[in-house]
């Protein structure tokens, strides 16, 4: 192992007189790492660890979920609120493979997570033993790092390294596969814990190079139509203040990606909207008119660029990014700045000139007016037919003053939530962006509430998504977390239906659902709830939801065949954005 300690031993636990087991070493290591919450599910190959956990209940709050995928998504929500790794504990074989979706989701959305997975005993490895799966092989492409522990002596060092790797640089999921024999056997030396202070082969650059900053500053200072695209990296680096200061000094308009939303308040005069397939009209179209793009902590996902070969060919690109492999991956950067978003923006601030770019900024307002007239206004002012998703989100936004944390699933409701919720506080949107994992929201909302007990957490879920992980209602009720769940029920897999309508001549292939009684299901789990299917009662329904003491489920029956616009058709260039 190449863990090198630069710091003197700072937090070394006193060596215990008697030797301890691998499982106990794992518990002590987690406590030393400051872990107080774990999401997990026991099983055969992890039982020694659960036995050790029994004696640590006063220090570690273990949350028993209903399915391992739920543990993963809950840990993701928790991690995004806490800004540190969420911890998952599951058994071997099916326990681990059930977790795979959440690991892949965490990797693509840069969410720190430490997954501890049981494995069969060392002697049984590779023998097709009961509940044995090659979890190392399965998770290798979807983890930032993974490691198999086969002896108790390795535990402390590997746990320290796991937390370090998960959290430093561009965060991501790591996985520790620990054999049952390593859990059971006794250490051969006294237990000590030393936090990992660095790894020789992994030194992410946090502080940008001066020459890169100067090139970037020159481009920005000479720009006539500069444009900031702020991504998830801003939120991960907690660089919201630096972003705002940078934008305010330079007068440059700011758009965000899907996951970059809430990094700047929607009522800030420099905020122009969000980007992407269903993002705002002006922010998308005007990327093609900017002369300098300042991309901060974003990776030019294809949902943002549309056809990348036609994207921002006219512009010079400043790319502020912590992961060097993202630079030039999709879009060539003329001025790459490798570093943490917070440090980079802070270092760039004194190098850029004050400006206000009023004329350029006003162009966004012109497009806003068109979008409002063609889309927003009709969506929000309809008086006939069923309730529209936009109305629900808009009303929720006003009732919560834009200060709730929204946890959204994947599909039309996700896009509508982003379009109509007016975020006013940082770190207020938890969603599955890169992976687009249906079933993410309910368990993630639970984890989000655990990670942010002082905030109002509202899960916005579609009727299709809800049925993928609805068993986690049980986890929410058992742990008395006041998660508010809104199901926007259109009895369809709405986004797929929309595509079938627009691009497949309305050939609705397997998108209509025969849904259960959602409120009755919630009640079956011991959660209160009710259904709203009339526009007149929507306001009262939302009031009831928000005021309820404890978890609550509100089903809103919405228009069946509603479409999300604007829309950039898949594979088209963003200039081909459609308003209807």
């Amino acid at each position, binding site marked *: 192992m190449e863990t090198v300690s630069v710091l003197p031993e700072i937090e070394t636990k006193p060596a215990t007189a008697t030797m301890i087991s691998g499982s106990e070493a794992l518990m002590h290591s987690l406590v030393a790492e400051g872990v107080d919450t774990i999401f997990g599910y026991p099983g055969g190959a992890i039982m020694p660890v659960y036995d050790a956990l029994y004696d640590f209940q006063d220090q570690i709050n273990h949350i028993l979920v209903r399915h391992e995928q739920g543990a993963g998504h809950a840990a993701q929500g928790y991690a995004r609120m806490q800004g540190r790794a969420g911890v998952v504990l599951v058994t071997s074989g099916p326990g681990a493979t059930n977790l795979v979706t959440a690991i892949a989701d965490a990797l693509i959305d840069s969410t720190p997570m430490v997954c501890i997975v049981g494995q069969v005993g060392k002697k049984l490895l590779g023998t097709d033993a009961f509940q044995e799966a090659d979890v190392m092989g399965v998770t290798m492409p979807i983890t930032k790092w993974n490691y198999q522990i086969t002896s108790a002596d390795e535990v402390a060092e590997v746990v320290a390294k796991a937390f370090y790797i998960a959290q430093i640089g561009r965060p991501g999921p790591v996985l520790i596969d620990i054999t049952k024999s390593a859990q059971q056997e006794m250490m051969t030396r006294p237990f000590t814990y030393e936090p990992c202070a660095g790894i020789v082969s992994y030194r992410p650059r946090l502080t940008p190079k001066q020459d890169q900053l100067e090139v970037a500053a020159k481009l920005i200072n000479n720009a006539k139509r500069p444009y900031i695209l702020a991504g998830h990296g801003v939120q991960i680096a907690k660089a919201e203040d630096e972003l705002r200061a940078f934008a305010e000094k330079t007068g440059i308009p700011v758009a965000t990606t899907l996951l970059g939303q809430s990094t700047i308040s929607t009522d800030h005069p420099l905020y122009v909207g969000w980007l992407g397939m269903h993002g705002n009209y002006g922010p998308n179209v005007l990327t093609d008119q900017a002369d300098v793009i300042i991309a901060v902590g974003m990776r030019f996902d294809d949902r943002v660029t549309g056809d990348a070969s036609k994207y921002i060919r006219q512009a010079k690109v400043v790319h502020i990014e912590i992961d060097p492999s993202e630079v*030039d991956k999709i879009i060539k950067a003329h001025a790459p700045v490798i570093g943490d978003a917070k440090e980079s923006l802070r270092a760039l601030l004194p190098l850029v000139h004050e400006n206000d770019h009023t004329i350029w900024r006003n162009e966004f307002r012109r497009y806003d007016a068109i979008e409002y007239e063609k889309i927003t206004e009709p969506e929000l002012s309809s008086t006939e037919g069923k309730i529209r998703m936009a109305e629900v989100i808009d009303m929720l936004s006003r009732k919560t003053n834009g200060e709730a944390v929204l946890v959204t699933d994947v599909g039309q409701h996700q896009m509508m939530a982003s379009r109509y919720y007016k975020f006013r506080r940082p770190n207020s949107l938890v969603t599955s962006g890169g992976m687009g994992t249906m079933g993410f929201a309910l368990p993630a909302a639970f984890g989000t509430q655990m990670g942010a007990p002082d905030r109002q957490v509202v899960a916005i879920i579609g009727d299709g998504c809800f049925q993928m992980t609805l068993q986690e209602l049980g986890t929410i009720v058992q742990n008395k977390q006041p998660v508010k769940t809104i199901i926007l029920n259109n009895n369809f897999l709405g986004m797929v239906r929309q595509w079938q309508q627009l691009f497949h001549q309305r050939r609705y292939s397997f998108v209509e659902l025969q849904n259960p009684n959602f409120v009755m299901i919630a009640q079956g789990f011991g959660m209160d709830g009710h259904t709203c299917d009339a526009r007149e009662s929507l306001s009262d329904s939302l009031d009831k939801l928000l005021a309820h003491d404890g978890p609550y489920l509100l089903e809103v029956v919405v228009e069946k065949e509603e479409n999300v616009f604007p829309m950039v058709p898949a594979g088209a260039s963003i200039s081909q954005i459609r308003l209807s």
Partner: protein
Amino acid sequence: MTTYTICVFTSNTIGLLNRITIIFTRRRINIESLTVSETERKGVSRFTIVIKHESRDEVEKLVRQIRKIVEVLAVFGYLNDEIVFNEIALFKVSTPLGGKAIDVETVNKKHKAWVVYWGLDYVVIEKTGTETEIFDFFAYLRLNHEILEFVRSGRVAVGKTEQGLVEYLPEADWAYYL
């Protein structure tokens, strides 16, 4: 198609080969040859991976993605003229009683190859050189003899720059590897 030689320096860990090759698989890049050995630094392995590719941009992206692996210390992508490279081949050649004798002089002097094992009715010839030289020799042998088995090692290469690996590592860590 251009030949690229990618040299990857890593700490010696189980499973790392898999992690590296996954990156090639994902991008549907075929590996022409791959060799791994420990370097002059204890605990540091060197992977030499040869690929053919049309786009330098894509190869650069590949190199950056390999660099991202936690255990990878350094990665270099080289064109042929930037490296000294070689590989080794073994030929098992049939020498039946009454068959054509091996022309040892041609084998030695023209092809710089050596008989390294004499079996009862076969010999094993070792040839070191570039792919071209090895295939020239292969053609010569096949014309005159029956080749029972043929195996190539894959390329090994060192860069032509004057720096050693250690100079690419953070200075603070030199002591660790020296």
